[in-house]
């Protein structure tokens, strides 16, 4: 099908793949990008918050043209019980700055735009094309890929595996393991359409301003998981995700969990009267630092979700994907400029640069968090939200009971649920994992 040899083949036109293709193409490398979807983004799901800084490092003027939904000026955290939520709202007028820091995006639109930028720099994009196999030479060096299109293999000096969390290629060639059920969360999400004025009134926003809500508590049925509500221009993204291992153990249906979340008395009024136009599901890597596989080898590098480069604690994924794609592109360009071979020794530069970036520094910081969240799921997602809710109720409900008794009641409830040592232990474990 394609006779010429490329400097690099990029698998996937998601965040990582587009960043890598753009970085390499804009430095003059001959890049072929393969995407299995009808168009970039047609297979991709995100909440989705876009972190501006990481995109700015790739396309500084992106704000002029990228399809952005709303700039985020407010972040809410909700601790939920069946009928209540205890919330923390952080809103700051400074977020209306000239170059806002976070936006909501819709991936099918954003990915198309991002891929087009790479194409304008000279990358060749083939959609509706699934890479089905990596080709290795006699020494095990990856030298190209085979696709499901007619025609023979396509060759390149290096293959960038930006195939996402559910990528098959790397796993099939034993370059990385298939993620385990403890290392991935399954998220389901719906798009609820409403007129912009209605969204703005319900969330107390001016036009183009946005707010996002992250919610944890009894909504996940004691599983390690979170719900989210994000405002777009004319729609609200509502979703919930939990670890696959927890879903399997609890035999809970994700779609029903989402329905229950939508019906929660704190959530329902926000989306009332909306028209739902899509129901999506996707995995999120949550294994953290310890789950990161080998990220480079002879003729290959792994970027983004495919390498578990995802910070579940901060709900950051696309920025780590973009940054790892950019860094991979820069490293490959450096090796190429030195006219050196794309072998493991030289591509180790990618890992070295990644180690020095926020990507691996952040993931390292929270290396113990996934285990903690998993083993303490019942306490963190069921017991504590209920205790906090009861404490708040004791505080605000005026019913003639002396305050001293109410405070005692609150303390007793906490002690009873977790024990004094349990409480100290929980605080200690959390602090240590957070540090």
């Amino acid at each position, binding site marked *: 099908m394609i006779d010429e040899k490329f400097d690099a083949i990029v698998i996937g036109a998601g965040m990582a793949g587009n960043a890598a293709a753009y970085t390499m193409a804009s430095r003059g490398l001959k890049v072929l990008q393969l995407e299995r979807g009808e168009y970039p983004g047609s297979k991709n799901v995100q909440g989705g918050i876009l972190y501006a800084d990481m995109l700015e490092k790739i396309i500084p003027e992106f704000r002029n043209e990228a399809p952005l939904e709303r700039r985020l000026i407010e972040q809410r955290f909700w601790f939920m019980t069946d009928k209540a939520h205890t919330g923390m709202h952080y809103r700051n007028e400074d977020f209306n700055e000239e170059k806002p820091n976070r936006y909501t995006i819709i991936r099918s639109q954003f990915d198309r735009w991002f891929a087009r930028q790479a194409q304008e720099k000279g990358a060749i994009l083939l*959609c509706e094309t699934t890479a089905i196999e990596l080709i290795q030479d006699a020494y095990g060096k990856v030298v190209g890929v085979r696709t499901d299109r007619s025609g023979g293999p396509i060759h390149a000096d290096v293959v960038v595996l930006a195939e996402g969390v559910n990528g098959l290629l790397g796993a099939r060639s034993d370059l990385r393991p298939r993620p385990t*059920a403890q290392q991935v969360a399954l998220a389901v999400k719906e798009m609820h359409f409403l007129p912009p004025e209605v969204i703005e009134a319900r969330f107390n926003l001016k036009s183009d301003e946005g707010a996002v809500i992250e919610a944890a508590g009894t909504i996940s049925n004691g599983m390690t998981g979170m719900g989210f509500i994000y405002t777009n221009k004319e729609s609200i993204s509502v979703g919930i995700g939990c670890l696959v291992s927890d879903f399997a153990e609890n035999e809970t249906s994700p*779609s029903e969990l989402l329905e229950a979340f939508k019906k929660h008395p704190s959530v329902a009024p926000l989306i009332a009267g909306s028209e739902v136009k899509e129901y999506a599901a996707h995995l999120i890597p949550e294994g953290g630092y310890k789950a990161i596989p080998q990220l480079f080898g002879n003729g290959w590098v792994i970027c983004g979700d495919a390498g578990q480069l995802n910070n579940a604690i901060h709900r950051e994924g696309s920025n780590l994907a973009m940054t790892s794609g950019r860094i991979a592109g820069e490293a490959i360009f450096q090796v190429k400029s030195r006219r050196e071979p794309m072998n493991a020794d030289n591509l180790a530069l990618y890992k070295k640069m990644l180690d020095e970036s926020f990507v691996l520094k952040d993931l390292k910081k929270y290396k113990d968090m996934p285990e903690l969240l998993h083993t303490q799921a019942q306490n963190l997602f069921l017991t504590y939200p209920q205790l906090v809710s009861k404490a708040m109720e004791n505080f605000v409900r005026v019913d003639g009971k002396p305050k001293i008794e109410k405070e005692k009641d609150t303390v007793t409830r906490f002690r009873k649920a977790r024990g004094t040592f349990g409480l100290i232990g929980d605080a200690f474990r959390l602090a240590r994992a957070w540090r």
Partner: protein
Amino acid sequence: MSLEGQFQKVEEKLFQNRYMVDSGQPHIRITPHDKPSKNLLAMTHLCPAGCYSVAESGQVELTADGCLECGTCRVLCEESGDITWNYPRGGYGILFKFG
């Protein structure tokens, strides 16, 4: 906790989506079995698109047309050989309008 019966059915949700179905070419296949494994049986609850169901004879069946390609069944059931998991052909399968 079972939430069954109270909410909108998955099939109704899938109606809102856009698919390009590759007729006769299911991308996921269940290995013939007498008695389903624990994980395969769990998929009848877990699959977000409700693709897995239990037949009267007790085996687990799959209709992959509404598959959202999330990969959950791959994570739980591929290694054990309960299923084989492939992508649909390029351009086929779920096509997210928003994502």
